[in-house]
């Protein structure tokens, strides 16, 4: 019943080539930088995992985190709502060169599809995107005279997220707006791996203040003082560090 794992390397050791991976965070807020970099370390050492499908609101910034994952050529496809950003060059270049696929999903539909995946709802109807290019080929149905688009659930083989507190059972809290997609991605991943800034004993989180109950979590690894993507990018950090 103790879901703690000692090292980042062990935490990401089971993710295979071709896996679908949800990664928490909105821009840099909530991005599990250390877990992503552990995945890159494994790839550099072993050549795996590659051909990943990555689900995140964005497509990375600068040269760390998801951008670094893309830069290494580990990602076959991105599923996101907003692949444009201040410095999205890594994704943009690969996309325009036809080296990476993109499934563009409206942000609320992305969130609801992920929640549906976690909640056992294979499909639902939303007004979002009706009449637009993003609804092309999707079933449409009218309810009470209004038209809705049918959307399917999204699930992942693995979910990687960052949380603030995590107890041994995997109960989690999040820091401020770093919460964003992480609670629903925790639900939708067959295996959910969490880097927590502080591991606490069971009982260390008030039962009423638990945001993600441990049933949605498979592994936690403590990473005190995690890097903040925005800060890394303002310092023009590259991962892995470029050798001079």
């Amino acid at each position, binding site marked *: 019943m103790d879901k703690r794992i000692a090292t980042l390397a062990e935490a990401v050791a089971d993710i295979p080539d071709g896996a679908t991976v949800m990664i928490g965070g909105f821009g840099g807020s909530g991005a599990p930088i250390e877990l992503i970099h552990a995945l890159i370390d494994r790839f550099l050492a072993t050549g795996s995992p590659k051909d990943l499908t990555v689900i995140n609101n964005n497509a990375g910034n600068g040269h760390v985190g998801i951008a670094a994952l893309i830069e290494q050529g580990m990602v076959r496809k991105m599923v996101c709502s907003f692949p444009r950003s201040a410095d999205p060059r890594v994704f943009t270049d690969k996309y325009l060169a036809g080296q990476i696929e993109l499934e563009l999903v409206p942000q609320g539909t992305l969130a609801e599809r992920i929640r549906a*995946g*976690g909640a*056992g709802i294979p499909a639902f109807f939303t007004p979002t995107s009706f009449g637009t290019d993003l609804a092309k080929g999707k079933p449409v149905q009218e309810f009470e005279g209004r038209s809705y688009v049918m959307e399917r659930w999204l699930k992942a083989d693995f979910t990687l997220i960052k949380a603030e507190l995590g107890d041994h059972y995997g*109960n989690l809290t999040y820091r401020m707006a770093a919460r964003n997609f992480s609670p629903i991605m925790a639900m939708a991943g067959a295996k959910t791996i969490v880097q927590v800034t502080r591991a606490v004993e*069971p*009982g260390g989180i008030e*039962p009423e203040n638990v945001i993600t*109950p*441990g049933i*949605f979590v498979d592994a936690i690894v403590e990473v005190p003082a995690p890097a903040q993507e925005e800060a890394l990018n303002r310092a023009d950090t590259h991962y892995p560090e470029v050798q001079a």
Partner: protein
Amino acid sequence: MTAKLSNAQIAWRAAQDIADGAYVNLGIGFPEMVAKFQPPGRQAVFHTENGVLGFGEAPAPGTEDWDLINAGKKAITLKPGAAFFHHADSFAMVRGGHLDVAILGAYQVAETGDLANWSTGPKGVPAVGGAMDLVHGAKRVAVLTDHVTKDGKPKLVEKCTLPLTGVGCVTRVYTSLAVVDIEDGHFVLREKVAGLSFDDLQAVTGAKLHLGGPVADIDVPEV
């Protein structure tokens, strides 16, 4: 005729199949007893539909807090590491396949895995609760039941005659006489009470019992 297992003994037998760390929902009534019989060294996490994960024993009479109850509206206590959540999140856990085991009562179980446990027919007030969600959500749906009805009719049948709770959902049945798996539309006998012959067991079972290997005696203590 051989002695049948008591309800507590059926619950004890079912408890032996629950792994350490499993997330478990126990149906209202007799299945609730399963929690008492966890083997030493194993600790399951119990889920209740009304939004609690990680609850423990009933509180001492007089110390109940009626904001802290289970799906059967009985007072409970919390273990360290418990969590509260709302009903939609609770059934996201159920429907989304996050529970390892649901253990329910039954009126009838069919060899196809169909379960009838919510309605005995059109008379009275119908009530369904969370059973229809549980049977489609948990990774493993097991049933605890007397092997026959009070008037001696089989509860393990070819086809349920009572209104269904779910189709093809049950994978194992713990009865007062046997442990039976449901595989590919067949009842497969795994264990039976010591001294009961296969033929005598088949005689009180409403569908063919198959053999899928050696049949053990159910090894259950007095509880």
